[in-house]
């Protein structure tokens, strides 16, 4: 491995900007770190270069641990967005800078410089000053300068950001060609997905300081695992569907789609389906569709963009129609469609036309948190709960919706639960949690009033049967908040030293599973004592803490955690409930 990052964390004022990131970049690989601004990608790149110290973790380059090695001894080349050329030096002096520092002989220096200028196609410009060159040429000089000392790793920080479109593409090709020719391991940081697709062997997508997914460009596009990657890499329509024993359904309409996770406990639940704009089929009527019907809609907007036609279609209210998840309110959500010219000629459309929509290809996300349902004694209180800052920011970041239900209403129509039930913290919380869990809720979020967005999330489960589900839910949650994840393993007091091996192993297993299945890096802590008091002690140790709690037995859990749940002001607690015996639970539910 050429670059190995192991659980790298960087905090600014206690807020992690790079949060437990682990990456392995192979020899000669072109790795693109993609993310919106503020996602921590540039900080991570600077950490690799050694310009930013890290608070936790290790960095190694070509098998050498460089965590505490100074930037100048790391042997990396770095290219900046604003070129960062030495403006008082000629092109030749800029390129030879690293060689002069190393006291290389003049003859060798000149030979190396000529070689590099040829590589970046700038022969003959040796004696120019940077100010006399165009932006594209300056960036080429910067690339040549970064390569002069034959670094083992080339790092590029948004190198095309300051250039216009045409030069950008030209330089992109040059950099790709140079990288291939030298076979140098390269990491490029960008917010531009098109750039990432054009250059990368592997893309790593970052958001809120976390590395969400790593993979081949094509795999990430076709099979994203998270909502963020689905919508950030290209456009995507996110649809709320249900996964039942008979497969995936939109309302009552079954569709062909591969479920990414098996059903748990035999219970029907919500899933999120990704529908790419180019995978939507448009026809006049349902019968004319050659693919899966999903809904009817009215064309609202048509935009001509040259090769493609862009449509925005409003879904018409039908009881069986698919539910669209948008960033705004559900009423404003629109299906985005792109059609090629042949498709357009086959069925010319005007704004206002009513059409049937089909999905040629749907991808179901493996995310266990599909939506939220704010539950309170009355509808008004539930509305208020839905406006809680934490719940609001979670649903916005997850691009999902928050439903509202009065608990009395729930009692009257015991429909199967969908999504995460959110309730207010306080005295009644314990009873409500118990009632919800007994009536089919699988996850309950207990929200104290005005809880801040957490900076640290503790994860704990008592029974290994709920490990997988708890980890999945935690991972889904943590992709959307910039918080540290800490798994808390607890060994009862008085356990002999020999008895600690098993909990220790569980701890490591949990960490490996979180990393491999969900790409979630988490810390592990082993506490000795009584579970509830240890958890409470840890939660009280800092501000803005949160707990994800996996439970298997309602009665026992409610008794044990009563005080923690009822604490004032308390902490946000996400309870993940899974019955250990799947068969029993399914039959019970069927009855």
């Amino acid at each position, binding site marked *: 491995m050429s670059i190995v990052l192991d659980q790298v964390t960087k905090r600014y004022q206690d807020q992690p900007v790079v949060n437990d990131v682990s990456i392995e970049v192979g020899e000669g690989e072109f790795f693109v770190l993609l993310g919106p601004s503020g996602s921590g990608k540039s900080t991570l790149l600077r950490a690799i270069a050694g310009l930013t110290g890290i608070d936790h973790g290790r960095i190694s380059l070509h098998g050498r641990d460089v965590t505490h090695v100074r930037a*100048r001894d790391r042997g*990396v080349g770095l290219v*900046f967005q604003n070129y960062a050329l*030495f*403006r*008082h030096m000629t092109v030749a002096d800029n390129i030879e800078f690293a060689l002069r520092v190393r006291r290389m002989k003049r003859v060798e220096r000149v030979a190396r410089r000529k070689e590099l200028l040829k590589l970046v196609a700038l022969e003959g410009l040796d004696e120019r000053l940077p100010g006399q060159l165009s932006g594209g040429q300056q960036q080429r000089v910067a690339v040549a300068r970064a390569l002069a000392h034959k670094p083992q790793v080339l790092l590029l920080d948004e190198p095309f950001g300051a250039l216009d479109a045409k030069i950008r593409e030209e330089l992109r090709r040059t950099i790709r060609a140079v990288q291939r020719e030298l076979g140098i391991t390269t990491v490029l940081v960008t917010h531009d997905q098109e750039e990432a697709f054009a250059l990368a062997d592997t893309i790593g997508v970052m958001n809120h300081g976390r590395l969400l997914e790593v993979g081949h460009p094509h795999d990430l596009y076709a099979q994203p695992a998270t909502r963020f990657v689905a919508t950030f890499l290209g456009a995507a329509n996110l649809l709320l569907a249900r996964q039942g024993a008979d497969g995936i359904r939109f309302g009552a309409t079954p569709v062909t789609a591969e479920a990414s996770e098996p059903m748990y406990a035999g219970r029907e639940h919500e899933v999120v389906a990704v529908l790419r704009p180019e995978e939507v089929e448009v026809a006049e009527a349902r019968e004319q569709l050659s693919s899966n019907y999903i809904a009817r809609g009215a064309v609202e907007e048509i935009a001509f963009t040259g090769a493609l036609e862009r449509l925005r279609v409003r879904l018409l209210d039908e009881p069986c129609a698919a539910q669209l998840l948008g960033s705004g309110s559900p009423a404003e959500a629109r299906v985005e469609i792109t059609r090629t010219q042949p498709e357009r000629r086959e069925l010319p459309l005007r704004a206002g036309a009513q059409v049937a929509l089909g999905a040629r290809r749907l991808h179901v996300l493996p995310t266990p948190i599909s939506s939220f349902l704010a539950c309170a004694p009355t509808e008004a209180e539930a509305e208020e709960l839905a406006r809680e800052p934490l719940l609001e920011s979670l649903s916005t970041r997850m691009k999902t919706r928050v439903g509202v239900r009065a608990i009395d209403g729930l009692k009257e129509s015991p429909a199967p639960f969908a999504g995460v039930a959110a309730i207010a913290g306080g005295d009644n919380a314990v009873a409500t949690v118990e009632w919800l869990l007994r009536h089919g809720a699988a996850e309950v979020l207990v929200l104290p009033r005005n809880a801040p967005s957490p900076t640290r999330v503790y994860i704990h489960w008592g029974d290994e049967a709920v490990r997988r589900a708890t980890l999945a839910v935690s991972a889904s949650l943590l992709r959307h908040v910039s918080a540290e994840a800490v798994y808390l393993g607890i060994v009862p007091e008085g356990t002999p030293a020999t008895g600690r091996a098993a909990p220790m192993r569980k701890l490591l297993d949990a960490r490996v599973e979180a990393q491999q299945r969900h790409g979630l890096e988490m810390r592990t802590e082993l506490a000795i004592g009584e579970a509830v008091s240890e958890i409470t002690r840890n939660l009280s140790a800092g501000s803005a803490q949160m707990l994800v709690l996996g439970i298997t037995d309602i009665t026992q859990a409610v008794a044990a955690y009563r005080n923690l749940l009822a604490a004032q002001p308390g902490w946000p607690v996400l309870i993940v409930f899974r019955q250990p015996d799947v068969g029993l639970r399914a039959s019970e539910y069927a009855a």
Partner: protein
Amino acid sequence: MNKVRQREPNVIPGFGITLGFTTFFLCAIVLIPLAALVLKAGGMDFSRFIDVITSPRAVASYRLSFGAAMLSAAVNMVFGFALAWTLVRYDFPGRNFVDAIIDMPFALPTAVSGIALTAVFAGNGWIGQYLEPMGIKVAYTWIGITVALTLIGMPFVVRTVQPAIAEVQRDLEDAAETLGAGRFYVFRRIIIPTVLPALLTGFTLAFARAVGEYGSVVFIAGNMPMKTEITPLLIFIKLEEFDYVGAAALGCVMLAISFVMLLAINLLQLWGRKRMMVSR
């Protein structure tokens, strides 16, 4: 811009009026008094002129004036740079306060700062009482003159260098560091060359100001002929002796040197701009 060109409509209209106004003011305030000075000096015959400006007392005063000014400007270049660096690069409590104090020598009547310095550095002053036993006499020596001139010139260096340092992007230092350069190397090869034009400008301004300084120096200098007598003071003495022509002759020497200094500043700025900011 020495050619009159007016093709595109300017933001400020009335080019003729503005040029006329500028020329008038320049004449009334700068050129006519200077011309009068030169004319006055021209009134004496050439050998006498040479005698006056090369008299031992005058030469000693030049040496002191220009030597002390040069030294104080050099001291300012080093410490002014350090001060400007600290103000630009670090955030510390009271930074704005320190930043405001920098301008104090601009505003303070120079006589006041001269008296203050004398009080502090005299043999029985706050600092002087500790320096005296060590054999360092500050007040009434060339050292005192240099200290006074340093105080007067300091804001010139700090204020010219500050924006130049602010312009040195961190990225440049980072780039140099990843290329293998150590801190001192970065300082010597990247930071100093980038800031140098501004630093030289600051140096020249401080030097020119120090050459012409009078108010603060007369108090701390002691004004002993041949020892601690600066040229402006000598001019003043000649005026008191009603030797107007002699004063004008010395004035001409100062004028010529000041002019060379200012010309040097402008050339330096031009040179720096050409090097750093060729059209992108």
